[in-house]
């Protein structure tokens, strides 16, 4: 059952002639650049909690965002009304917002539709009966509870989205994409003498329902249960600076925060990043190569074109310790007289695009993961990181550990309780002293910036940071 989408569904969402007219009118007040971004997103989610299928929900969001750039100013308006009247009203609002001084309509001629084809989806989630989605939840619930009687609560969530976008701009660009994402997560609570503990596992890919041909939700649920159970015996985390080893697939968040955000060109342009003005310099230890790659087929942060119509790219940010490039959207790239790197993204049509990461990963090295642990006298091993946050101007960043262990005399010993770690991006990058060859992608994430969330992926092999501050409570 390959790609059952019909021809009418992949046709233009809004008639190109109308887009041309709307763009022309958007430039009526003297704008240099205008863009129409059209989006149609359908989503389904189902939630099992407390042993019951509590809810199945469906959502539909459809509309267009129009922006007009005049000088340094961007005007933006959006509408849920895709009729000629609705689009023209939004276009007038956007051009008024840009406060230009011109008059009259400028003619825009759109090229033929172009851009890479959308990813092939084997099984569109909308073609799958809802009871099959619900059955997955029940399976996960049973598997987690069967793991151990100490598992006292299970929440399982299924979610899919089918997002179609169409982008036209006054440079003549006309392109689009269809992005299908499917996600499944399980959260468990374990109860014991030490109180309550939680464990979570999730899997998400830019694919359709075929995700479940290769993912066993029972296994996922058992891993979530195991994580909660393990923490019932957890000891307080250390407090202070010690070596930290991060396991394969578990540590992408560290790079996302330590330098990913700091390499976004909008923050660079405002000197709000510690990495501003440092292209060509050594910013990380030898062997550290960091890549942001929106073309990784099927990964959570991938797409054919970004939300400005630019094809996704593989961008090398740091090569063997040297800062090679930042990430760019159209606005920032245009000011520098270069091309966007395909990192212009937005949460939806109601938002302006900005520079965002896609799938960010640390390339594999040559060290042996077991030797990295064995060579660590006293430290912390983080098997799974939670979220994180960074102040790009100072470089200080935090990230949570949701599964971690003490390393004593080169051995993993007691599990430790949850908490944050804190470090400074440039110092941590230089302090990476071992990188293994066991690369793995991590869990699907949602990256928040300036009030907008977008799906991102990450990956790392096992690696070690020589010193990081672990924020526990142990003396």
């Amino acid at each position: 059952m390959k790609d059952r989408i019909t021809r009418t569904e992949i046709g233009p969402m809004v008639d190109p002639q109308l887009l041309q007219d709307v763009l022309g009118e958007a430039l009526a007040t003297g704008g240099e650049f205008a863009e129409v971004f059209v989006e149609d997103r359908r989503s389904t989610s189902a939630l099992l909690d407390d042993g019951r299928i509590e809810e199945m929900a469906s959502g539909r969001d459809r509309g267009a965002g129009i922006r007009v750039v005049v000088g340094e100013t961007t005007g933006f308006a959006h509408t849920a009304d895709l009729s000629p009247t609705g689009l023209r009203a939004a276009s007038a609002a956007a051009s008024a917002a840009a406060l230009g001084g011109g008059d009259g309509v400028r003619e825009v001629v759109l090229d033929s539709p172009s851009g890479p084809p959308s990813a092939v989806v084997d099984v569109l989630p909308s073609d799958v009966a809802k009871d099959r989605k619900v059955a997955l939840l029940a399976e996960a619930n049973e598997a987690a509870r069967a793991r151990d009687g100490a598992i006292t609560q299970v929440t399982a969530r299924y979610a899919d989205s089918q997002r179609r976008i169409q982008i036209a701009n006054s440079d003549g660009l006309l392109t689009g994409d269809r992005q299908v994402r499917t996600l499944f997560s399980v959260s468990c609570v374990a109860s014991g003498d030490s109180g309550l503990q939680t464990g979570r596992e999730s899997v998400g890919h830019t694919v359709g329902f075929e995700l479940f041909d290769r993912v066993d939700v029972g296994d996922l649920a058992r891993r979530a249960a195991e994580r909660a159970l393990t923490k019932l015996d957890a000891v307080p985390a250390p407090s202070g600076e010690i070596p930290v080893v991060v396991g394969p697939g578990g540590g992408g968040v560290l790079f996302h925060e330590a330098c990913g955000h700091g390499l976004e060109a909008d923050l660079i342009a405002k000197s709000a990043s510690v990495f501003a003005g440092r292209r060509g310099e050594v910013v990380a230890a030898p062997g550290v190569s960091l890549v942001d790659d929106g073309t990784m087929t099927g990964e959570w942060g991938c797409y054919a074109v970004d939300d400005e119509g630019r094809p996704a790219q593989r961008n090398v940010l740091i090569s063997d310790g040297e800062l090679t490039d930042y990430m760019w959207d159209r606005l920032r790239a245009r000011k520098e007289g270069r091309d966007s790197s395909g990192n212009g993204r937005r949460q939806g049509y109601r938002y302006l695009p900005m520079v965002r990461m896609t799938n960010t990963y640390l390339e594999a090295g040559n060290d042996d993961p077991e030797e990295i642990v064995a060579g660590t006298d006293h430290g912390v091993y983080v098997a799974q990181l939670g979220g994180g946050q960074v102040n790009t101007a100072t470089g200080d960043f935090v990230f949570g550990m949701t599964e971690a262990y003490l390393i004593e005399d080169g051995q993993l010993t007691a599990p430790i309780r949850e908490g944050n770690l804190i470090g400074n991006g440039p110092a941590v990058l230089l302090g990476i002293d071992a990188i293994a060859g066991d690369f793995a992608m991590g869990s699907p994430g949602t990256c928040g910036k300036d009030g907008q969330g977008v799906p991102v992926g990450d990956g790392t092999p096992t690696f070690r940071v020589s010193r990081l501050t672990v924020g526990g409570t142990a003396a």
Partner: protein
Amino acid sequence: MPELLDLAERIVGWADEGEQVEAVVVHERETEVRAYEGEVESLISAESQGVGVRVVRDGRQGFAYAGTLDSDALAEVLAEARDNLTFATPDEHCALAEPDGVKPAELDLYRATLVDHPTEAKVALALDLERRTRAADPRISGVESADYSDSISESAVATTTGILATGRETGCFLSSYALAEQDGETQTGFGFSLGREPSDLDVEEAAADAAERSTRMLGAVKPPSGRMTVVLDPWVSAQFLGIVGGTLSGEAVQKGRSLFADRLGEDVAAPLLTLVDDPTDPAAHTATGSDGEGLATRRNVLMADGRLERFVHNSETARRAGTVSTGSAVRGYSSTPGVGVRAVSVAGGDCPPAELIAAIDDGLLVQGVTGLHSGVNAVSGDFSTGAEGLRIRGGALAEPVREFTIASTIQKMLLDVLAIGDDVRWLPMRAAGVTLVIGELTVSGV
């Protein structure tokens, strides 16, 4: 607004025999201006609307929403919700809210003056904020963002059970994010002002706060690790109080996800702590007369003199607990009603913050925390967050410190509250802030 209610009632009128239908309709207009280097970087003028429909039949609920109020979409949303309910597990407590006779507080949350405020004046506010932030101190090297934003929102809820509720409110917000630089080192600071209409806004205060919070961090060092008396400033305490409020949701309690589940009536906090959730307080920026199910919001005392008094409920969790809703259903149009606090505050003490600091010989004032989403586990109570602030030595503020964490458990921190300031202040979140002195937190630095 009558139109929104009409729309909601129209959908409810399509209910079939034997089913309950609830429609939530929302309309919002927003303006956002960002200034940068004396120019408008972006101006967003947005209007959005949406509808969420819940259908309950035989103890099963289904839900659907759409980000539009187009007539053709409404019937589709209802049909989707109806289809979705067939997949739910029947539950005797699953039903829509019923009118409970509690009259909603009459809150004056809407200002025509904001609606009529010209865009040029909003632009001028953002530009003025940026200019004043830059001018506040010679060490301010830039302003990452200086924003004016506002929203005018209206909503209506109608149900087949007889609920009819409407609400409308305005809000506006100024925020400045300053960059301070000295000897090649950069620090950041945030300042804001908020209100219901532009005349409530204090540009100078927002600019001065951003400048002071950034410049006073210049030269910050990493503190040594250890246990210490920590003062949380209002901005920080409000974030923690919001999290504490979240642990008191009836849903979390019933589902075995609250660390306070079996502790009603027990002393869970220091005796000086009284915690109230009161969305009927018009001073709260999150104030609202009716909750997500259309029931009247009310003043709920959560903790009195350190004793745990109550959990908050929506109609479903109340039914399950054999009690009545506390008017605490929280939701947007794109989700079903959850349970949560809206406007939490602690009863203020009688000491100005400066006096509280003067009484501390060796401690730390925390002015900002990061990583609350990754470092606080509201189920186990463990928390550890990134922090920045100033050392307190001999009763006075001393050198700035950064790149450290503060950690404890929610349970222990509540018991460790030593003193409360007299500076209760509503903030742009579900809680008010106040200066709180915590007897002991673990500081992890060098």
